[in-house]
């Protein structure tokens, strides 16, 4: 079975190499192989993968990874940052003429989503920029292509210019632009027929259309499921037409979408939009970081990793680890951890990140207050008690319960769980990877739940993904 995400892959690979302190260069090499395979499985172009991993490797050989207590995550982070950077850190907007009629032209292979996205863009520009768009049906080849655009126009109450199939696309486009100017349309969106980049005749037609329309944007629609050929296609369209932007379509499925990286890397053309469904409002501005986590097979969890790393910085994590080892972990540290975790969002949100659990959670009530109760109880402890958990006896517990307004049984549960957690973590710190694995397996069995509730998290919005990668 293939590993789903780069994080899983690295975890797997690291299991073989960790447990003996610092990493060697060979270990990094092993990890790079996983990075490479993961990117290939995501359909990133082979050549792009090669260059990309070389760059990542150079970065990974830096001190941070070798010395890090979480080398796998460091590598994921480096790869993630690189991906994000290559795909363009900032989203690029559409180019409009300051005055007069702006013209967009959609081009691409057959079936990639040109017609649908002509409609989506028209709607988007009307909503966002208050434009008065005109759709132009210049696909005279595919059966019923004009009907399709006209239907879409009707659904949006946006007019469609068409002359049937008896005129050439050149004639249609010329007339359409005149028509737009006369009728005060400040935006013209031309839907062209799908074609292969290697079809010389039809590519020449596009060049003529470009000459006639002088478009402000030539947008190439690319199906996000495209494999290795994405490079040939985008390069060829770009060479022949000077494409100004890419729309990556059908991202509502489960494709990893490595084509995004290849295209950007090879052509330098910015990816401007993502198509996220068949409905006409399912269009979003391109998010490099979401694309990066997707390519790595982590859903949007990496956005979460980012958040987690903001919340829990590595130094702090290292300090905690030391505290566990020396058994100096106390209630103050626990409180600090809870606060860090709370910064990441609600418990229900955290749990919903677990694949397959999301939908089942809908009907489950989760007491979000439980954390608050724990915090209240700890706050009712004296500084001495917090620092020295062993001194908390029955009468102290009575007092803490009264002070926090919680039931004595809750206080008992917390102190018991805290003690268990302390012991478990202490054990874990001294375990070999094998023992660790065995223990984790035990915990995953019903009835063997770990008493600390949290290892998942989520940011705002609609992130979804898999296991929190820093665990």
């Amino acid at each position, binding site marked *: 079975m293939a590993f789903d995400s780069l994080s899983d892959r690295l975890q797997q690979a690291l299991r073989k190499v960790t447990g003996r302190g610092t990493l060697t260069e060979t270990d990094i090499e092993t990890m790079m192989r996983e990075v490479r395979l993961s990117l290939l*499985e995501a359909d990133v172009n082979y050549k792009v993968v090669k260059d990309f991993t070389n760059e990542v490797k150079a970065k990974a050989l830096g001190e941070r990874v070798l010395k890090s207590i979480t080398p796998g995550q460091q590598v994921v982070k480096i790869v993630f940052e690189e991906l994000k950077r290559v795909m363009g850190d900032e989203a690029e907007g559409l180019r409009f003429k300051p005055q007069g009629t702006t013209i967009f032209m959609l081009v691409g292979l057959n079936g990639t989503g040109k017609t649908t996205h002509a409609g989506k863009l028209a709607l988007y520009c009307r909503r966002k920029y208050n434009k008065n768009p005109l759709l132009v049906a210049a696909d005279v080849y595919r059966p019923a292509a004009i009907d399709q655009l006209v239907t879409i126009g009707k659904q949006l109450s946006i007019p469609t210019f068409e002359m049937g199939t008896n005129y050439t696309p050149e004639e249609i486009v010329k007339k359409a632009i005149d028509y737009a100017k006369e009728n005060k349309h400040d935006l013209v969106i031309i839907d062209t027929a799908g074609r292969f980049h290697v079809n010389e005749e039809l590519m020449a037609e596009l060049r003529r259309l470009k000459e006639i329309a002088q478009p402000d944007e030539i947008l190439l629609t690319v199906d996000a499921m495209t494999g*290795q050929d994405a490079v040939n296609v985008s390069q060829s369209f770009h060479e022949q037409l000077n494409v100004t932007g890419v729309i990556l379509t059908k991202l509502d499925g489960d494709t990893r979408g490595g084509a995004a990286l290849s295209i950007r890397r090879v052509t330098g053309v910015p990816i401007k939009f993502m198509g996220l469904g*068949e409905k006409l409002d399912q269009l979003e501005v391109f998010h490099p970081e979401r694309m990066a986590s997707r390519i790595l097979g982590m859903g949007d969890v990496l956005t979460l990793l980012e958040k987690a790393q903001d919340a829990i910085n590595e130094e702090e994590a290292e300090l905690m680890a030391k505290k566990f080892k020396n058994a100096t972990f106390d209630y103050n540290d626990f409180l600090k951890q809870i606060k860090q975790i709370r910064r990441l969002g609600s418990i229900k949100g955290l749990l919903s990140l677990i694949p397959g659990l999301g939908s089942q959670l809908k009907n489950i009530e989760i007491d979000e207050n439980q954390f608050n109760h724990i915090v209240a109880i700890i706050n009712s402890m004296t500084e001495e008690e917090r620092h020295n958990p062993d001194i908390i006896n029955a009468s102290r517990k009575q007092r803490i319960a009264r002070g926090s307004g919680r039931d004595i049984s809750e206080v008992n549960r917390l102190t018991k769980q805290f003690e268990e957690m302390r012991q478990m973590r202490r054990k874990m710190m001294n375990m070999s990877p094998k023992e660790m694995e065995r223990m984790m397996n035990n915990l995953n069995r019903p009835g063997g739940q770990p008493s600390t509730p949290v290892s998942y998290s989520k940011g705002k919005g609609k992130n979804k993904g898999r296991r929190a990668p820093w665990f």
Partner: protein
Amino acid sequence: MGLFNSIKSIFSKNKNQLTNEEQLIVEKAEKYKKGMEKTRSSMMGKLKALFESYDRVNDDLFNELEEIFIMADIGVNTVLELMDEIKSDVRIRNVANMKEFQSIIIDKIFSIYVKDEIVDTNLNLNENGLTVILFVGVNGVGKTTSIGKIAYKLQNEGKKVMLAAGDTFRAGAIDQLKIWADRVGCPCVTKAPGSDPASVMYEAIQLAKAQNIDVLLCDTAGRLQTKVNLMKELEKVHRVISREVPGAPHETLLVIDATTGQNGMNQARAFTEATNVTGIVLTKLDGTAKGGIVLAIRNELGIPIKFVTMGEKITDLEYFDIEQYIYGLFSDMFV
């Protein structure tokens, strides 16, 4: 003697020495060769350069070959398997010269596809009654166009065909199929946009039975395999068809675009789960993409390819033939 040598021997014969059977093979091969011209030229360029720059088989050569396979979208798992087989063969047979190496490559691709089975590329047609063929796939792969072409082919083979416009969702889809039906000159059953696709199938089946149709080709709306509700809808379509005609659908064909990458595997898995896919139609092979994912699908899921399309004309469709496909990819190596 191996595929490589057998094809080669046919092509090295004088044209008028060929048996009828060989004649057919040559004709079909020419079609593949022409249709896959663009596909091949990008692949062959690389292979040629590869073979020219090496005079013996070594690790670098293997690495570059692996690269070529990956670039054909065959996918990491299957490529690694393929490479292992090629390497072990090279070792066992102690291969040194390039010609021999080339023939091993081709034979290995062939055996990854064929396995040890007899691959039946013929359509499973119901000889005494109505045959129903259901077409499924993600958006934009060319289902409707393929149906038009297959209808044309079957009709030329003497079958009475009918189309069912089950894509009631996408704007213009019904009209698109109707235009194809006109071109073929066959009936097409439609309902209003937005109708339940299962009810379209139901009506089409009743009409097909009444009119003694041989083959009913059923279009469906493109859908991404992750959309639970839409996959349920497809299951229902499948259920209605099998309820109305025992043993139907006789084929459920998954249409896959040759430019598709590794997601093709997810598609094959999910559509098979919902509708028990029996074969694949590989479209758009006339571009530069190789469609290698179908080899991975065959290798990992056992689903055979039934048709390939290599152009926009109504005649640009062929029954799939692994030897011809390989020939289409590598024909320059046979000379």
